[in-house]
């Protein structure tokens, strides 16, 4: 999700609190998706694809059956121990209001959080297990080479205004969302679908999708093999819009939008104040199999996490954000029920094409930098010890995750002896290196810590604060030797993270390190086209191991939610992407 600019109160406030609000994840860059160049003929036969990628050993058909049965039996999610009540959320929008709450336009986790309460897509990530669950889709399958995907929709799914949610609803919505006229930053997420390029070029208006409303099947033709479509369509870009939304422009979100989710809008949102939702009584049940437990859901807007926390402490909200430096205190007072791991990574990037730190020849130098950095110290000082030290790039929770892909980065603290040995093996003079960070107090602290760590092993770096608004463009265009960045997964797929960030032909230019290794490219392309989850994971793991061995990034910490819950909250299901399943939230 896109990084909210690290908004700071003027000077002194920042000194008072180093804060990493939920949507901020330090420095975080929006991404999109690379299209695999290979093209394959569509095979007529279809093969069922597992509804979950976390159980690769399970047979596909059996997995789909399990999921469908679970929903039919009342859902895989949370039951309501109590129905009714108002949940006031002061966590989601604790640093600013969402820029957008239109599913086709939003680029932020905070906007998507609101959207996920109002809309349901074809699939959804299980809050408990991280597995993919059927949502509006009853089941799905693809042909042998994953170029044609068919989603079978559930019967009787309706929008809150009574309109049916049909296959054609999805087709029309997707075409609206990828149209250049709308200018959605996430339109590239659909670039695997045939017809997407023609729409972008102004040569067509339709995606190669067959919507059979009578049989409730949605057949999606891809321009190249892609095994992760079911995960990708869990993204907000692919959520269905009602008829008025399908033809609406950017102003749609100014009024009352119609969704098919657990809640509906009570009126137009009040920018910078709140967005109020009420239970959608015509909801089809989603992954829980029942309407929302809550009567009302209010997303309260704050502009300062410290006062948002004060508001929570005053009993005015059901959840709240833990301001920087207060993690230990807050979890001691209110428990750690809502501080689970989030699928995000904070890292130090190193430019692969730089004449000093780049290329295969500088691997020892990069590894030395990694060994010299006291990541446990950063976690302790900057994150109040709340994060988990990364031992790889892809975090636990991503289907296919495997620990120990590399020998690098296994030690949490600094290892100056190893760093010095690697530097001596590198055997070249090391000039003063340039380190860029996006201006903020958090980033300044990290930069100073890293500078001190590297100085201890004889590496001098010049730390330079950069304009937050243009930071990633500047990193992309000016190629600093070392730079800070981060990544939060948009959907629970291995391909969304590491493998899209380091591919040579990354269309979305998320490859900030300029990493370019043919073997890595081949493995990720193979993985992307693979429909067998186990084989796909193996390909991605091999690719990631290559990248980590080369130490083109120094992983720092994996993310964790900084959330406190009121004792009045009973159930609070939240998946590792950060989305709270508000349909399953209940009060005591």
């Amino acid at each position, binding site marked *: 999700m896109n990084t909210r600019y690290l908004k700071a109160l003027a000077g002194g406030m920042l000194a008072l609190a180093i804060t990493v609000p939920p949507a901020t994840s330090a420095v975080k860059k929006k991404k999109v998706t690379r299209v695999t160049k290979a093209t394959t003929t569509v095979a007529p036969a279809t093969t069922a694809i597992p509804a979950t990628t976390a159980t690769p050993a399970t047979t596909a058909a059996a997995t789909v059956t399990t999921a469908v049965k679970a929903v039919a039996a009342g859902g895989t999610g949370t039951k309501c121990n109590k129905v009714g009540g108002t949940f006031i959320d002061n966590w989601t929008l604790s640093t600013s209001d969402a820029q957008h709450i239109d599913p086709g336009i939003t680029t932020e986790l905070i906007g998507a959080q609101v959207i996920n309460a109002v809309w349901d897509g074809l699939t959804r990530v299980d809050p408990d297990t991280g597995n993919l669950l059927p949502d509006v889709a009853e089941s799905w399958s693809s042909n042998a080479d994953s170029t044609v995907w068919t989603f079978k929709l559930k019967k009787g799914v309706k929008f809150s205004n009574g309109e049916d949610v049909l296959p054609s609803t999805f087709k029309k919505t997707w075409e609206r969302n990828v149209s250049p006229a709308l200018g959605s930053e996430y339109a590239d997420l659909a670039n695997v679908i045939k017809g997407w390029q023609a729409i972008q070029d102004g040569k067509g208006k339709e995606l190669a999708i067959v919507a059979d409303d009578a049989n409730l099947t949605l057949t999606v033709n891809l321009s190249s093999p892609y095994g992760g479509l079911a995960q990708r369509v869990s993204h907000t870009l692919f959520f269905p819009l009602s008829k008025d939304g399908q033809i609406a422009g950017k102003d749609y979100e100014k009024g009352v939008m119609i969704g098919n989710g657990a809640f509906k809008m009570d009126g137009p949102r009040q920018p910078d104040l709140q967005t109020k939702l009420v239970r959608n009584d015509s909801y089809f049940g989603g992954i829980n199999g029942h309407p929302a437990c809550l009567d009302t859901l209010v997303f309260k807007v704050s502009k300062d996490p410290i006062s948002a926390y*004060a508001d929570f402490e*005053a009993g005015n909200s059901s959840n709240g954000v833990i301001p920087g430096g207060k993690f230990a205190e807050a979890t001691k007072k209110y428990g750690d029920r809502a501080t689970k791991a989030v699928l995000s990574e904070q890292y130090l990037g190193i430019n692969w094409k730089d004449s000093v730190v780049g290329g295969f020849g500088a691997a020892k130098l990069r590894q030395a930098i990694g060994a010299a950095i006291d990541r446990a110290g950063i976690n302790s000082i900057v994150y109040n010890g709340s994060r988990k030290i990364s031992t790889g790039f892809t975090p636990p929770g991503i289907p296919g995750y495997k620990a120990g892909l590399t020998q690098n980065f296994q030690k949490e603290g600094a290892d100056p002896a190893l760093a010095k040995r690697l530097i001596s093996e590198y055997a070249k003079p090391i000039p003063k290196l340039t380190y860029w960070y996006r201006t903020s107090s958090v980033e300044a602290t990290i930069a100073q810590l890293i500078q001190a760590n590297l100085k201890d092993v004889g590496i001098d770096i010049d730390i330079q604060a950069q*304009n937050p*608004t*243009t930071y990633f463009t500047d990193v992309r265009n000016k190629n600093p030797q070392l730079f800070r960045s981060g990544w939060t997964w948009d959907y629970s797929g291995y391909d969304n993270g590491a493998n899209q960030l380091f591919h040579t032909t990354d269309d979305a*230019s998320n490859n900030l390190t300029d990493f370019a290794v043919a073997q890595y490219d081949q493995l990720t392309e193979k993985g992307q086209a693979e429909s067998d989850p186990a084989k796909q994971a193996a390909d991605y793991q091999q690719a990631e191991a290559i990248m980590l061995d080369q130490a083109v990034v120094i992983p720092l910490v994996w993310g964790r939610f900084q959330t406190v819950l009121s004792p009045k909250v009973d159930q609070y299901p939240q998946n590792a992407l950060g989305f709270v399943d508000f349909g399953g939230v209940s009060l005591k």
Partner: protein
Amino acid sequence: MASYLIRRLGLALLVVWGAVTIMFVMFFVIPGNTIDILSGEKVVRPEIRRTIEKEWGLDKSVTGQYVHYWNRVLHGDLGKSYSNNRSVNELFKQRAANSARLAFWGLTIEIVFGIGIGVIAAVRKYSLLDVVTGFVAVALAGIPVFVLGLLLQYGLGVRPAQWNWPRWARFPVQGMGPNRWFVVIPLGHQWKYLILPAIVLACVQTGFITRISRTSMLEVLNADYVRTARAKGLRSSTVIVKHALRNALLPTLTVIGLDVIGLFGVAVLTETVFNWPGLGSTIRDYAFAQDVPVVLGLASIVVLFGAMASLLVDVGYSILDPRVRLTTEKVD
């Protein structure tokens, strides 16, 4: 008088034009490309780039954009936000009322308490009251706004809730509440949401005004005409209110006049801490995002307001002190 006002009005407009022009130029000087901001820094294909440039008038030269901007503004259109497509006119309507209400009450507290305490301290010079109010005034002027805000939030909002004080004794720590007003008068429970931010907004300047009022009042109380008034046997309250206070208010009025601008347009910290959606915090938010139309549009109005406030202060001088004549005529 009329010619003076016309001249000052012209000057005020010149100030607005100059300020807006400087801001406009600065947005072209600071790093950052509008297309990158609009596209979220994603690499944009040339055809999309051209579409965006045309839509936002960015295909014109800087001069062309400048002319286009003024053309729009003079037709009453402040433009649309780059980042979320919101109309700046609408944004202004929403935020200005919030800012004006908060500023009104902040200013009222400043005037009532600042001048009141200052006058009492001067009249009871060197008394315990004078010492205590002097200490409090300096302390108030020195406490950073956000610290005071947080202290009040915890002292009057959080702790009372944790100690289970009755509802009426607790203050909300954030937000606008029901947003029910009669012009600037809060209705129902609205006052509970207003009081803490208004106090915080007023505190720093109340300290200054207290000290300035006291000093001015002391000077005036020692003036010959006040002694004369006392010698004539006038009541002490009449001497203070009718003779001394009116003249002592001149320097205070200058401070208050300048403060109006600060309270209305740039109360960034108070608005942020209490999540009061006013102009100041809005300008700050959009400035971080380099959202030129919003920042220029709202800041222009704040500057215009400031220029008008300054003009009113000058007019106020002539009312308070008839010796001050608003005229362009030369005095021999």
